[in-house]
């Protein structure tokens, strides 16, 4: 039975209520509706974060690539699989597939690796960001490089944790196979 059916069932009971009980019942409907939207909100956050954080930074990759350096390849190899796994995990969680939890854990593991490499400015992130600071026309390149590394690490980590929590909750409510 879909959540929409359950909400319809709750609305049908409204006729039985009156006064404060009616208000309480309406709040309950709103709560159940809001809880049902959480997986979609988290998945949307992951998609927006992945698209915005990874594919939205394409100009950084292009600037480094145009300079003749190949350090962008290492950064791309690090980020693109993580982004793809994130999108797949978000889709699996929203569709309540059994593989959603495993995909969410895989996404979290990849994000953890990326975040550590990014925050500690380790290879291949270091070479990539150093090359970008050398070739970019951005006058505050050093600050922006640090912001990109730190913000993307924190944002992706939060998104991955949220996705794992949602997937775990779905798993706990699913009947045994």
């Amino acid at each position, binding site marked *: 039975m879909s959540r929409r059916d359950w909400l319809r*069932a709750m609305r049908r*009971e409204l*006729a039985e*209520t009156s006064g404060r009980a009616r208000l*309480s019942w309406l709040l309950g*409907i*709103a709560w159940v509706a809001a*809880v049902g939207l959480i997986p979609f909100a988290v998945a949307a956050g992951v998609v927006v974060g992945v698209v915005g954080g990874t594919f939205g930074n394409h100009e950084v990759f292009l600037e480094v690539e145009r300079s003749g350096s190949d350090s962008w390849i290492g950064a791309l190899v690090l980020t693109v699989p993580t982004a793809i796994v994130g999108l797949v995990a978000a889709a699996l969680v929203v569709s309540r597939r059994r593989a959603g939890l495993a995909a969410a854990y895989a996404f979290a593991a990849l994000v953890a690796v990326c975040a550590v490499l990014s925050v500690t400015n380790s290879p291949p992130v270091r070479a990539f960001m150093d090359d970008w600071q050398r070739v970019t026309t951005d006058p505050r390149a050093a600050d922006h490089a640090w912001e990109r590394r730190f913000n993307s690490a924190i944002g992706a980590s939060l998104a991955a944790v949220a996705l794992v929590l949602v997937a775990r909750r779905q798993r706990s*409510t699913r009947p*045994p196979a």
Partner: protein
Amino acid sequence: MRRNRKHSEQTRAVLTELATDPSHDRYGYELAQATGLASGTLYPILMRLEERGLLEARWELSDRRPRHVYRLTAAGLAATEAVSEAEPEPPRRSRSAAPSGRQATA
């Protein structure tokens, strides 16, 4: 492997109430009244019980206004009996002492 979780007090209250007459269909509002649970707590529990195969939920179409009715499945009845043996029956709450709309863990 699936963990065998203990039922929350609210879930036990719902199971116990449904088990009082397992052959009788119950309405959501009736269950809320009997258990003292707010709808925001009751319905997530009903959803989880239905997902786990412990509860049968269907539309009652005989009435002018279709309503959802609930009853325990055989698995639900067995689970309730197991809970009753393992854990003491939860205290019944009056409507005024109803818990908030916070979600309970099934």
